[in-house]
Every structure is written in C-alpha cells, then in structure tokens.
C-alpha cells in the first residue's frame, strides 16, 4: 500500500469519526437543553430507541424476547416526547437538569449503515436527587439527503441496577 492510499484511508476514518462525533455531541446538547422536537428530528422514520436491563447482555439482547426498560419505535418515541412536554409528566415536572458526557467515540461503515460505539455518563439532578447513568451507546446511522440520521440507538447501562435512580424519565 502506498503512503497516499494509507493517508486517504486514515482521512476517511477520521472524517467518519468526526461526522459521527458531531452528531452525538449535537444530540447530547439538544437533550441537555430540552430541545426534544429537534432531537426527535434526528431519527429516521423507521427508527428504534432501546434501553435494555442490566442483567442481560445489552449489546446482543433482543427486545422481542427479553424484558427491556425502553422499547420505542418511531411512534412511541414521538409520544414519549409529547408526554415530556406536558405538566402531567410529573416525574419531569419541573424539568430535571441534565448533562450528557459523551466520549470514546468509535465508528465504522458496514454497507449503508454506520455503526458507532461511544461511552456516556448522563447526570440528572432534580430537587433532592442527583443520579448518574453510566453506559455505552450503540448507534446505527444512515445517510439521508447528505445528513447522518439515527436509525437505531441502544443505550446499554453499565450498571448493576437502577438504584437509586428508579426511573429513566429523561432521554439517555
């Protein structure tokens, strides 16, 4: 392999990672600022959003055969956001303060799908409670009109249980 092909491969890999990082950071920022409609617009219309429980292998578990915490298709994800906009979503009223830290982003292309893995810590603070969600994201991204869109987002919790959190009333 010549130096220039190696450089080009490196450039492609870096560019891909930068594009993915850009999307993930944008996503995190939108959630932290509670701009949930804009966040929702990052998903394709056949998108899924999953949070598996901690006693299964979250990287491979199937929501059709294992009990998850969250199994959202596009319709339910929209409804989740509609719900969070209401005063009757008591768990998030008043809204909690959120901060997503996203790091260790890795991406590779497999046909039309870009797979990424990234680490996260999500902080949720609300009146007397302050909880941290720690885990990793598995994103499946696709190109739509020159933009990267999320087709699937799985949030794997690297935790033993949701204690004391009790709830995932926010978006991870």
């Amino acid at each position, binding site marked *: 392999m010549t130096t220039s092909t190696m450089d080009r491969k490196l450039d492609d890999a870096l560019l891909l990672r930068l594009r993915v990082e850009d999307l993930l950071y944008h996503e995190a920022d939108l959630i932290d600022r509670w701009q949930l409609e804009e966040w929702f617009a990052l998903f394709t219309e056949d998108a899924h959003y999953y949070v598996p*429980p901690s006693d299964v292998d979250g990287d491979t578990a199937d929501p059709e055969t*294992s009990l998850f915490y969250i199994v959202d298709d596009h319709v339910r994800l929209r409804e989740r956001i509609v719900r969070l906009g209401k005063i009757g979503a008591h768990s998030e009223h008043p809204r909690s303060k959120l901060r997503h830290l996203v790091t260790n982003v890795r991406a590779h292309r497999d046909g039309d799908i870009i797979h990424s893995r990234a680490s996260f810590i999500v902080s949720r603070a609300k009146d007397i*409670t302050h909880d941290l969600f720690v885990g990793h994201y598995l994103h499946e991204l696709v190109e739509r009109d020159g933009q990267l869109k999320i087709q699937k987002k799985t949030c794997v919790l690297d935790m033993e249980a949701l*204690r004391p959190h009790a709830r995932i009333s926010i978006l991870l």
Partner: protein
Amino acid sequence: MGVETGIINDKDAARFLVPRRAFTDRGVFEAEYKAIFDNCWLYLGHASELPEPGSFLTRTVARRPVLFTRDKDGEYNALLNACPHRGALVCRERHGKSRAFMCMYHGWTFGSDGHLMTLPGSSGYPKGFKTDPQKQMVHVPRMERFGDFFFISFAKDGEDLATYLADAGDILNLLSEQSPQGMEIIGGTQEYAIRGNWKLLAENSFDGYHAACNHSTYLEYLGNTKGALGVDPLKGEAIDLGHGHAMVEYTAPWGRPVANWVPLWGEEGKKEIDGVYNELESRLGADRAQRIAKKSRNMVIFPNLVINDVMAVTVRTFFPTAPDYMEINAWAIAPVGESEWRRKFRLYNFTEFLGPGGFATPDDVEAIEKCQQGYAVGGDAQYNDISKGMAREGVPSFDDEAQMRAFWVEWDRRLSEYGA
C-alpha cells in the same frame, strides 16, 4: 409487647387513618422486620427460572442473601448464601448452572443442596468435622411452592403456604391457567429502587383511584395511538382475599395478549387473539375464560408480592432497607409456548406502562417520593386518609380504597400482636 400502630379504623364514622410515622419511624421499620418480614411467607422465585438440575440464582430476600438452586436430582433448595466457615457469600453470581459452589475465601465447596463436598486441608480438622451439621450451608427454615411460585419463610413454625395465601391462591391459579403449558418468567429483570417507604408501593400497586390524575399522560397516549384503545371502560371492584391479601379486578380499555384484542393489532392479530380465547373457553369454560381474558387484576399478596395482570403481567417484589428506601425487582411472566407475535406485543405493552422507562411507573415513583418528602412536615398533619368508599353500600369499587384497608388491617394486626 406489640407495637402501638396508632391506626384509626372507625367503620361507623367511615374513618380510616394511618399515622405518618408508619412511614418514617425507625422503630416501626425494625418492628416490621421482626413482625412481618421474619414471619410471613415471602416470594422467592418461579420454577421457570431454574429450568434444569444444576440451575441456580441468587437473590436478596428481606435483607438476606439467598441461593436458590436445583440439585442433581432436580429438587429445589433455598440456602442462606453464607459460608459456615467465615460467613463469606458462597455464590457471587446472579444466575447460572453449576453442580457445586466454592467459597472463594478458603475453598470450602458445597453441593447445590448445601452439603459440604470438599474441605481443603481437612487434616487440620477432627474426624467427623466435614459431616457436622454446623458445617453445611444452612437452608432457609421453610420453603414451599404454590404451583410454580416458590415462597420462603424465615420462621421455623407457622401456617403452611396454601393456608397463608387464602383466596390469593386462586388468583395465582387463574394466572397459571392462561396457558395449558403453564407460565414462565421472561429473561430480563427491572431492578430499581424508590426513595420512599415500602408500604407506599404496596398501596400504589393496586390503587385504582390515582390513574386519572397521576397517569393522565399515559391515558392520553393510548388515545393518541390509533387503535390502542378497546371498547371496555375502566370499571370494576376491590376484593379482599383474606390474610391481608387483596386485589382490584376490572375491565380496561387496553389490549391484553391473553386475550383482549384492540384494533391496533389488526385482523391477523384478531385471529390469533380469538384463537387464544377459544382455547381458554374450551379448556376452562366460558365464565373462567371470560374472567382470565377480559379482566385486569392488580393484586398484593401481603406483605410485598405484587402480581399485576394488566396490559402484560408483572411479578414484583420490594424490600425496605430503611424507612425511606426500598429495593424493587420486577419480572415479566408469560404463557409458555405463546407465539412470537404475542410475546413481542406483550413486551411492547409491558414497557409502555410498566417499569422505570414506561409512561406510567416514573410518575408513580414521583408520587411515592413526594409523599415521603411531605411527611417531613410533621406537626398536626400526622395522618394519611385511606377511607375512600368506606361508607359505600354494596361492593367496593376498584377506585375505592378497601383493598388498601385490607393490607393495613393485616399490617396493624401483625405489629400489634407481635410478641404479645
């Protein structure tokens, strides 16, 4: 020396008041462990979780680490998970398959029935040491099964499980009859905690009164989702099942995989749900089939086993570790051999309402935690009101509070009579 609970139960005046120190007082909390958790039958697990000889799981029950196993003969064992040598946890895995358990400290190794198999350095011990009953893992004093549900009791004596369960046993049977092949726990556990007193979750689990306000967004979500609402109204009754167990049983507009169709499931789904219903009817008769398929049930088996047979079925236990903190485990239970389609919709239904990521449970958690915070006001605001429906003539409604009064009367009795 029983505990003075301070509950006011005045039927003539339709007053039922629970003092808030029942939720905050450290002395009450300690008394509950002695009078209730160390005496009652407590849910341990379901037979389907230990599918074959050698299967095991570990679970904390009433603060005690328990190792639940099937030995080589397929017999079930509930062992206190501590080494007789120095007390270390013997099994440190959550579940798996093994015919022996080695303590990682000094290598004492036990069979899945708890007997000491291997004693390293045995020449340092006298003859007969290895078979000394004191050197074996200790069995939980009592374990019994009701159908496929296993319960344990830390009390050596007391009534048998079937007597204890009273009419709640029939509701467990009703659940088991959903399939001719029995029921199974689906893999994946929802494990969480709530910063509130455990009795608030017992109340909340079969509270038919809070849905309209606390879960308005869930009901609106069903309304927004085309075809998610069936024709049945929310309507039903509260039933006292004896010994502190109670439930609400009612019709509801949501779909049930066994077996209440909603338009969202389409014509294919209708065929399948009709098939499920017809099987129930031919096996159990029209009345029983109707009850199983069309009615939802939220049941609390005293003190802390919840079985909610709603848009899916959850089995839930919870134990306090302090007056203002509890740990909860929740599972999904389903008919063995149901189709992939039904299993998928069941799990989709379950996560829609139930659990930390659902559209309803987070708001239950919020309510429980805000109650606990509210109790700090103290002063003259010292009672919770549990009287709804007390003056009603006839059958208590599902959105009354008769089911909670059944729980509280038993709680009161056990604490008052403890040690008396």
